[in-house]
């Protein structure tokens, strides 16, 4: 047996991540992209409909209001917020910011990113909230 193969770890079983809460949360975070992909495919369908004409666009809005699609997209919204919560805390760890020689507290960086989420939502409200 050669040197490298004797040092290899045994392969993990498929359910290794079910054994600890931390790994379950890790897998849940990995899974947040599933509803994201669903929403993206919906959005692509909407873009095709918009290109086809007014009637297709109305049809797409009706499709988006069907209960299953709406439920999956509510899951997508929750997933995006969960992803945001896990992603924002990584920023200060990956790239600690220093201003005038003093390091910015982690909470300030996380809060800044949430402020970004709110700012984008306000931009959308400005665009779509009034006719």
């Amino acid at each position, binding site marked *: 047996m050669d040197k490298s193969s004797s040092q290899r770890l045994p392969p993990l079983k498929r359910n290794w991540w079910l054994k600890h809460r931390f790994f379950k949360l890790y897998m849940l975070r990995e899974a947040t992209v599933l509803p994201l992909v669903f929403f993206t495919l919906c959005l692509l369908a909407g873009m095709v409909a918009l290109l086809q004409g007014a009637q297709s666009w109305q049809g797409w809005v*009706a499709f988006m209001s069907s209960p299953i699609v709406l439920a999956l997209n509510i899951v997508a919204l929750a997933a995006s917020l969960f992803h945001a919560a896990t992603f924002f805390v990584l920023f200060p760890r990956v790239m600690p910011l220093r201003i005038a020689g003093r390091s910015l507290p982690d909470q300030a960086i996380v809060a800044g990113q949430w402020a970004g989420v709110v700012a984008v939502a306000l931009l959308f409200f400005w665009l779509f909230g009034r006719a």
Partner: protein
Amino acid sequence: MSKPSMDRLSMNKQAAQHKQAFDEPLWWGLFSAGGVCFAVILPAVILFIAILLPLGLLPAEALSYERASALLFSVPGFLFVGAVVCLPLFHAAHRLRHGLFDISVGNDALNKKLMYGGAALLSVLALGLVIAGMLG
């Protein structure tokens, strides 16, 4: 890092390929950029376009056919699609590839091609739709 621990790390994904993975920084970069878009922009996009619009909670003209076309088929619309469709697709492709590896589904060399290939195809389609709308 000591030799044994290097060997253990290298039994991960790239080991089977027996060559340096020069492309990995690109995938991690796209993953990271897509992650920022997914976290910062997508909540508002999903809320307004996939929840409030179908529920009829937006003003009638907010995303009428005319207004939606004018907004999407434009330069800002092109950038919007890049940030809301393309980058998050590469983020998703990266997570799916690594998730499949984590639960030992398929083989990584093929998953990699399928995931990033799929993200690239859909991205080209999305950007192509905007260009088609701008020309049409």
